[in-house]
Each structure stands twice: as structure tokens, then as C-alpha cells.
């Protein structure tokens, strides 16, 4: 398992070398969205309308942060459970997005979309919101402020630690890891 440092936006060249289980330190701009924001973004795509940010090479982080304390760019900001975005992620990948950050398993449609469009599903450590929030150096709400914690934010990350869960070849670290340590009765 290899370690990489990558800067957004990502290209197919970046994503195709990653293998499930690799660790990556992400740098640059990423965008946050949870279920409610995904529904609106996918509705815009299907209506052929302009999105609030450029999807090409983008990474979407599934997170609803706590309110920032005065002087901080953002509060605690760990990943939320990703399956709630399963019905939206293939459309996002098909339209240029190259990666997602969340926690927990994805369905086959998302894994297939990762293979079809050179996408990566990264896992960040759930419940490590204080640690992960500190790796975010700026944050700005760029769409849907009425959604509160679920608004779309443009954030800048520095050495944000993630693990490759689903790669472009169809590998899944959750299945590989579990098979390795399962004790059959």
C-alpha cells in the first residue's frame, strides 16, 4: 500500500494510479455537499443548468461541519455516512467529478461509476472531526446557505488524510480488509 500527496483538481492520471488501501494527503480546493445539496446539484445537471462550481476534476466531501468558533475557518468536520449519496454520486462522476470523501460502504452503481469515469471514493476517519477540521485552512459557503450545515462550501485543505476505499479497478478495501480478518465459525 502506497502513500501519495495529491493536489486538486485531480486528473484521470492521478486517480488511475491509486489502489484501494493506499493513503493520500489531499491539498487544494474541495467542495462539501450532503444529501440535500446533492439533490439540488443533480437536479441542475439533469435540467442542463449551470452548477455553483466547476465539477471537472473536483472532489466532493460529504460533511456537515459544526459552527466555527470566532477566528476559525470551520468547526469540526469529519465525514458523514456515504450511502445516502449513492443515488447521486454516479451522475456527479459522469459529469467530471473525480472523487468523493466520506465513510462507509457504497453500492455497486457507485463502484461501477468509479470504474467508468476514473473516480475514487476516499474514506476519512469518521468521528475525527477535530483532527480533520484543523486540516481545513479556509471555508466559504458558495451555495444553498439556507441548508445550514448542509450548505455547499468551497474549502481549502492542507495534507488532509484519506484512504482509498474504492479505486478505478473495482477494488474495495472494506471487502478486502474484512475478508482478511474474518474468523469463520
Amino acid at each position, binding site marked *: 500500500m502506497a502513500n501519495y500527496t495529491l493536489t486538486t483538481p485531480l486528473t484521470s492520471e492521478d486517480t488511475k494510479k491509486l489502489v484501494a488501501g493506499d493513503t493520500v494527503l489531499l491539498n487544494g480546493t474541495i467542495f462539501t455537499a450532503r444529501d440535500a445539496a446533492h439533490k439540488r446539484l443533480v437536479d441542475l445537471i439533469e435540467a442542463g443548468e449551470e452548477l455553483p462550481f466547476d465539477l471537472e476534476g473536483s472532489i466532493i466531501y460529504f460533511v456537515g461541519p*459544526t459552527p466555527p468558533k470566532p477566528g476559525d475557518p470551520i*468547526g469540526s468536520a*469529519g465525514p458523514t455516512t456515504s450511502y445516502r449519496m449513492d443515488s447521486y454520486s454516479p451522475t456527479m462522476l459522469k459529469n467530471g467529478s473525480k472523487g468523493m470523501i466520506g465513510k*462507509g*460502504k457504497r453500492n455497486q452503481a457507485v463502484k461501477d461509476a468509479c470504474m467508468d469515469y476514473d473516480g475514487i471514493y476516499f474514506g476519512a476517519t469518521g468521528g475525527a*472531526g477535530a*483532527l480533520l477540521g484543523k486540516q481545513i485552512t479556509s471555508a466559504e459557503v458558495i451555495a444553498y446557505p439556507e441548508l445550514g450545515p448542509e450548505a455547499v462550501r468551497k474549502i481549502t485543505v492542507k495534507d488532509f488524510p484519506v484512504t482509498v476505499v474504492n479505486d478505478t479497478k473495482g477494488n474495495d478495501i472494506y471487502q478486502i480488509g474484512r475478508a482478511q480478518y474474518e474468523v469463520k465459525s
Partner: protein
Amino acid sequence: MREIEFDVVVKAVRDMIMHCGTDLPQDTYDALEAAMEAEKSPVSKEVIRQILENANIAKDEKRPLCQDTGLAVFFVNVGDEVKIKGGLLRDAINKGTEEGYTDGYLRASTCEPFSRANLKDTVGYNLPAIIHFDIVAGDKIDIEYAAKGGGSENVSRARVFPPAAGKDGIVEYVKEVISDAGGNPCPPITVGVGIGGTFEKACISSKHALFRDLETTNEDPEMAELEARMLTEINNLGIGAMGMGGTKTALAVHIESNPCHIASLPVSVNVQCHSSRHTHITI
């Protein structure tokens, strides 16, 4: 009759919520350290290391441990010789909850079920709290509090079995629930199992079981043995920390058992993530 000022309760609740948001309980921290030592998978070991580092940062810098600061859940034992002066106990707990979540910069995660509208502007900040009251003898109020996150709550389940299911049926069910959940509820988890009672009694018991100190053993030897059996079976699933594969999927299984109807064997499995934010105070 002892009188307790409304505002005393408000402040006590506010303070416990803010403390819980940033300070992982010592029993959980110690159990995670032990799990890191014992974990055989290097990937899961690294995940637990990050979880412990996160706990240290949160405590030192007073940052929320997790962005999901939960719904506020309370178990309140009210002494029969206590009177709240200046208002209702329920209102005091809700007011303390609102102040704790606001002053602690904790996320308001309560919303209307179908519109999904955040209720901040209508009924308050992360309100209403979920409160389970009981009346006990004495002149004190004992308040247990947990910040219960959505990820682990979403994988929790309940089912009423026929009595013939027995212990084997319950163990299989607990395994099935945890196996299906995989990494979603943020393992290493604690598993609360409510057995017996009625449908809702089993659910509430499974929640309350999560408040028990991780270093304790069930006082009922039969239940202690069942807990140990379930823990082994769960850890044999190989799920590991955050589902990455490993030997430490659960830190503990806690059972609360109740007498039940001759026709039923209700079982509830309530899952708690590794960020097990709970505490209790006595006023």
C-alpha cells in the same frame, strides 16, 4: 421537600453538554488505547491512532470531537422529595440543551421528519431533547446524558422474536445487525442490547445499556457470559476500525434484560460509535 432552582438545572445541563462535546470519557479512551494495542491490522491500528489523537486535540483545544454532535438524550431519575422552583424540570433540561449547543458551538442536527427543515428557528437549538424520566426515592435528581450521533443510530434495529429463538437466535440477530452495518456506524463500536420487556421497553433498555461504564462486568453472570459470547462473535466478523478490516470491531457489548410476555422475546440492538459521548451528574 427539597427545592432546586430552575436555573441550577439549566446550568448543570448546559455544562455537561459542553463538556461531553469535547471530552471523550476516560473509560472509552482507555478502551480505545487497549484496542489499538491489540488490533492486528495495521490499517485499523492507524485509524484508532487517529481517533485517539482526535480526542486529545478536542480536549486540549475545546473543539467538538465529531461534527455530528448528536441529538441530546437524557435518562433522568427524579427523587420523590424534589421540587423544581421556578418552572418545569423538562423545560429546564431543554433550556440547558439549547444553551449548551449554542455556547459550545455544537451542531444543531434536529430537523422536521419530512420537510427536513432545521427546527432552530421554530422550537430552539437542537430541541426538543429526548428525555426519559423515572421517579425514584430521595431528594436528588440524577441526570445521565449522551450526545447520540446519526450514523450509529441509523444501523440500530429491533425485532420481537418468538420465545423459541432463545439465546442462539439473539446472538445470530446481533451478529446480523453488526455485519450489515459494516463500517457505517464508526467502529470500534459499543453495542447495547435490550432483551425482554415490550417492544419499546427493549429499545429503551438497549439505549440505556450504552451508558454503563466500559470497565464494568454485567452483575448477572448469565448476561455477562452472553455479552462475552456476543463480543467474540462480533469481533470475528473482521470489520475493524471504520470498516477497514481488523480484529477490534467492538469495544464491548452491554445487555439490559427485562421480564417479558409469555408469547414474546423482544430484542433491540442499539449501536454506539467510538465517539461515545456520555456522562452523568447528580444534583
